[in-house]
């Protein structure tokens, strides 16, 4: 029941030997064929076989297989022709080719194709549909060292997969209309679908899928380029199976979609155009496979046209012609492949007179070509007759009394012409000269598949009623159900208009070929007369290039690679969004009366704002100034915190301010200065002023926006906040009077844990980055201050104190302060739980104390006397904090639950010792570690300069000696 599963599995077990692979593939194909054939009794007379497995039942997607007459016919075609192709390919492929890949793809394709035809669920069908595109891409690009193969593969993939996506969309629309993706349900809802408002959409999408797959105008151009594939692939995919998927889809959905004028114009129109264009183009091909490809296009157009006509009989004809085409075209391709294989070329200008060299092959090919031309007694004739009949009948109905029959006849004539071309140019004429190889008959087994197919053409053409009729009936019933019209597969219907058309076509076609042969010297035609300008391939490539360029331009104009535009957009969006959301606010000022303004506070902020604006003004060329100015703003912020009762914030802000200043200065050492443009004699371009104007507007707007928001918030009533709880529970529950600190280490200690992780992480990142730091070349030499003034004494190595001379006094004072600052750190740490302070502030204070020593003594000297391993401090701090948190587990409490111990010591009395205190210790340790790591990592860079200076000195000295 699941041959394709077996084949797909087998496909991914590549072996090395050609024979083994072929046997495996052949066996699977044979098994499939046999199995399919055995199912005939079940599906004949309208029977349907179903297999269903739950997959995504909630969304109406199940894995369901459904075999009715139509599916059976197609399945048989897929497996049967597949078997022949495998046999053929075994001899066609050269030993150098990676055959395992070939067969595995081929089998995968077979599986997918079976999946398409046997799908009982439309989504699943779309799935297999796309799969066939994928695999065909791989098969076309099989010889991917060739540029044409790559291009052809990409083209085929792009077109068919795009169609597949359309089909997917169409199927989704169908599912939306019907409320189910099951084929059975869809087939039962034809009326609903055809009258639904989105019917046209569904139709167009599905048509796009089908037309692209079946290489219908205007998507036909990919098929000739797909001929870069190995010939077995062409024979299989591009004649017998994959291109038929589109047709299959149209047949499959014919009962629900057909019968409307939309259907007629879209499907029929595309079919008609394809029929004519394909046939016309086929005549002028020089490549054997190109001719076959265009003829395939044309025949598919015929089938599509038949389906588009919308009459049941035409549909039967379409099914019939599908089968016929598969047989004769596959055999033609095989013949072409044999010729290619034997002669080394497929160029019809170089081939001729092969009949004498390989008569059997020639006969086979000619039989098939005749079938293609619609010569009586061959299968092509019968289906073509049916087509002519319908063209006459339906053309009258839809008001194309003349157009349709004439077009049909002209197309028939064209097809006769190119069939002639195929037969005459290749097999007749003078013996071929300077071919790459000397042709002879191929090995028997390679010819066998073609022989079988040609035989089928003959048999079906001569005795249709005994061969194909029951199968055709089965398929037709599956599609049309009770609508199956009366039709007859007799060869002779009497002298009717269609017969006349047939003969006109045969005669006209032959005449046309003769005229072209003589008059236009067909062999020298390089491009298609008349319509070469409308090359689908060129349009396709142009469209793709254009689309890419357009996308590129759009991406660039909708996006930006620079940082500033990106930031402008972000700021604009943020401001816009905030304003939009708050635009309904009745007034900015809320009901709460603001507090009386304090003039000192106002003055403070005059200072703060002046500093901020000054900083903004100076930052480009006067970094140091900007740094000092931003310090002024920071000070204003800090005092504001204190003013409004936030001592912890003020302390922290102050210390962070100090550390940041040191940090920035450490950084400035490695940032070469900028000269003002006027110093360099440059003028600022006008565009820069425009940018600045925009940015100024934006920043003013943003500032006003945020000011407005905060004013609106500050004048709104204070909500019933969760903070009341913290005030109430800080002392009894958290064991601390400083609610902010209790929040930090207890209520929201979890935040603090994250926060210290951030700090530690950043410190590690900074360290890692500085390990591979490459400073700006301009900043590598020692600063001029040091080269000019030198160092008072030594460089701090070997314990010699570098702080002598004019550095003595500052060093003495700073060193005296060290124990005092350390004591202060301990003080801040210990009392943090009840008063402003805490681990973070204390850690910063201690770090500052250390850094002061670095500033006075230099890195080398300090580190020879103080061994800090900041990374371990970070690790320890984290572990300490987490360990405290985990300690709560021991007592059965959640992570970080605080416990207050109150040991009573002699002499001292009760000492409150909350576990949060230990947590804070972790914070303290980490902060010291992280701050020191960041600062010293930067400070260590300076050692490089000193070493570089020493190196240049050392290098200079020996050079000078000879002069002395």
């Amino acid at each position, binding site marked *: 029941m699941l041959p394709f599963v077996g084949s797909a599995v087998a496909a991914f077990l590549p072996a090395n030997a050609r024979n083994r692979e072929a046997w495996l593939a052949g066996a699977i194909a044979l098994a499939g064929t046999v199995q399919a054939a055995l199912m005939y009794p079940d599906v004949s007379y309208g029977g349907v076989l179903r297999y269903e497995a739950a997959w995504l039942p909630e969304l109406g997607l199940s894995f369901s297989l459904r075999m009715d007459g139509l599916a059976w016919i197609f399945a048989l075609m897929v497996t049967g022709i597949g078997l022949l192709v495998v046999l053929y390919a075994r001899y066609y492929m050269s030993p150098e080719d990676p055959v395992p890949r070939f067969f595995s793809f081929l089998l995968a394709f077979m599986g997918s194709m079976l999946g398409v035809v046997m799908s009982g669920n439309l989504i699943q069908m779309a799935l297999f549909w796309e799969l066939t595109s994928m695999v065909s891409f791989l098969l076309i690009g099989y010889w991917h060292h060739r540029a044409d193969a790559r291009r052809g593969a990409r083209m085929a993939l792009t077109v068919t997969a795009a169609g597949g996506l359309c089909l997917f969309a169409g199927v989704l629309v169908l599912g939306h209309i019907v409320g189910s993706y099951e084929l059975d349900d869809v087939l039962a809802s034809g009326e609903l679908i055809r009258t639904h408002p989105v019917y046209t959409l569904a139709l167009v999408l599905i048509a796009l899928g089908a037309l692209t797959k079946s290489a219908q105008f205007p998507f036909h151009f990919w098929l000739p380029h797909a001929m870069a594939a190995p010939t077995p692939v062409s024979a299989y995919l591009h004649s017998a199976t994959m291109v038929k998927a589109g047709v299959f889809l149209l047949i499959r959905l014919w009962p629900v979609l057909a019968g409307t004028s939309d259907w007629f114009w879209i499907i029929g129109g595309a079919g008609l155009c394809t029929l004519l264009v394909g046939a016309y183009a086929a005549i002028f091909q020089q490549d054997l496979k190109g001719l076959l490809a265009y003829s395939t296009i044309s025949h598919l157009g015929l089938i599509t046209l038949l389906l588009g006509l919308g009459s049941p009989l035409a549909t039967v004809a379409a099914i019939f012609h599908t089968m016929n085409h598969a047989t004769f075209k596959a055999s033609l391709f095989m013949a072409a492949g044999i010729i290619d294989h034997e002669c080394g070329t497929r160029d019809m200008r170089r081939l001729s007179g092969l009949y004498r060299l390989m008569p059997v092959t020639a006969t086979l090919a000619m039989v098939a070509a005749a079938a293609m031309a619609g010569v009586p007694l061959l299968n092509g004739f019968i289906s073509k007759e049916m087509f002519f009949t319908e063209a006459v009948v339906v053309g009258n109905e839809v008001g194309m009394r003349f157009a349709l029959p004439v077009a049909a006849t002209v197309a028939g004539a064209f097809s006769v012409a190119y069939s002639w071309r195929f037969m005459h140019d290749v097999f007749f004429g003078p013996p071929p000269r300077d071919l790459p190889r000397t042709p002879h008959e191929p090995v028997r087994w390679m010819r066998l598949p073609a022989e079988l197919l040609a035989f089928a053409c003959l048999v079906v053409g001569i005795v249709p009623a005994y061969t194909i009729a029951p199968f055709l009936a089965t398929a037709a019933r599956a599609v049309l159900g009770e609508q199956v019209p009366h039709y007859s597969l007799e060869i002779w219907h009497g002298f009717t208009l269609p017969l006349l058309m047939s003969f006109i076509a045969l005669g006209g076609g032959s005449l046309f070929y003769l005229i072209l042969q003589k008059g236009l010297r067909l062999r020298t035609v390089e491009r298609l007369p008349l319509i070469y300008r409308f090359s689908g391939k060129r349009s396709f490539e142009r469209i793709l290039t254009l689309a890419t360029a357009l996308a590129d331009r759009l991406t660039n104009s909708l996006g930006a690679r620079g940082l500033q535009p990106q930031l402008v957009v972000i700021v604009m969006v943020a401001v816009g969004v905030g304003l939009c959301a708050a635009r309904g606010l009745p007034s900015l000022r809320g009901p709460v009366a603001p507090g009386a303004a*304090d*003039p*000192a506070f106002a*003055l*403070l902020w*005059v*200072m703060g704002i*002046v*500093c901020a604006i*000054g900083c903004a003004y100076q930052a480009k060329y006067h970094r*140091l*100034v900007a*740094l*000092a*100015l931003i*310090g*002024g703003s920071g*000070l204003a912020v*800090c*005092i504001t915190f*204190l003013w409004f009762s936030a*001592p912890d914030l*003020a*302390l922290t802000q*102050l*210390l962070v*301010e*100090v550390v940041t*200043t*040191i940090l920035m*200065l*450490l950084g*400035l*050492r490695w940032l070469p200065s900028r000269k003002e443009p006027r110093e360099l004699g440059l003028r600022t371009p006008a565009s820069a002023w425009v940018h600045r104007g925009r940015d100024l507007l934006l920043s003013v707007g943003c500032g006003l926006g945020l000011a407005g928001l905060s004013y609106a918030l500050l004048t709104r009533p204070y909500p019933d906040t969760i903070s009341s709880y913290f005030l109430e529970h800080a002392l009894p529950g958290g064991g601390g009077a400083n609610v902010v600190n209790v929040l930090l280490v207890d209520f929201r200690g979890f935040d603090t844990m994250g926060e210290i992780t951030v700090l530690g992480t950043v410190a590690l990142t900074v360290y890692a980055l500085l390990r591979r730091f490459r400073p700006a070349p301009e900043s590598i030499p*020692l*600063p*001029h*201050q*040091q080269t000019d*003034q030198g*160092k008072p004494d030594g460089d*701090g190595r070997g314990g010699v104190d570098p702080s002598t001379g004019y550095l003595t006094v*500052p060093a003495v004072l700073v060193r005296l302060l060290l124990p005092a*600052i350390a004591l*202060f750190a301990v003080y801040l740490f210990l009392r943090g739980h009840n*008063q*402003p302070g805490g681990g973070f502030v204390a850690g910063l*204070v201690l770090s*500052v104390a250390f*850094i*002061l020593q*670095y*500033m006075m003594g*230099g*890195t080398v000297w300090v580190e020879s006397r103080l061994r800090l391993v900041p990374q371990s401090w970070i690790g320890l701090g984290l572990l300490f904090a987490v360990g405290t948190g985990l300690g709560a587990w021991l007592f059965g409490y959640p992570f970080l639950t605080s416990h207050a111990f109150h040991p009573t010591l002699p002499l001292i009395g009760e000492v409150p010792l909350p576990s949060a205190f230990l947590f804070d210790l972790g914070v303290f340790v980490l902060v010291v570690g992280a701050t020191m790591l960041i*600062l010293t990592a*930067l*400070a260590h860079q*300076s050692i490089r300069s*000193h070493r570089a200076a020493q190196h240049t000195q050392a290098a200079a000295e020996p050079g000078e000696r000879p002069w002395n």
Partner: protein
Amino acid sequence: MSVLPWACLAAMLCFALAMILATLRLLRGPQAQDRVLALDTLYMNAMLLLMAMAIRYGEVLYFEAALVIALLGFVGSIALAKFLLRGEVIE
């Protein structure tokens, strides 16, 4: 009704004005050392402002912040000064 809060407010105004003066010097320069000096003065005035505030609100804790400025406020300035003097803060 005590005179002390008003005196404190007056002192705070003085300190704030002094801060503005320092800021002007900070902006004006003209040289880096002037600016560093101005920043240092700014910090010192801020410290005094905080002490006045402590008296005004009778809250001894404001004093802590003043102490921090007294003890560590100079660090930024000496870092800047060292930078001017040696071209780098930590050699």
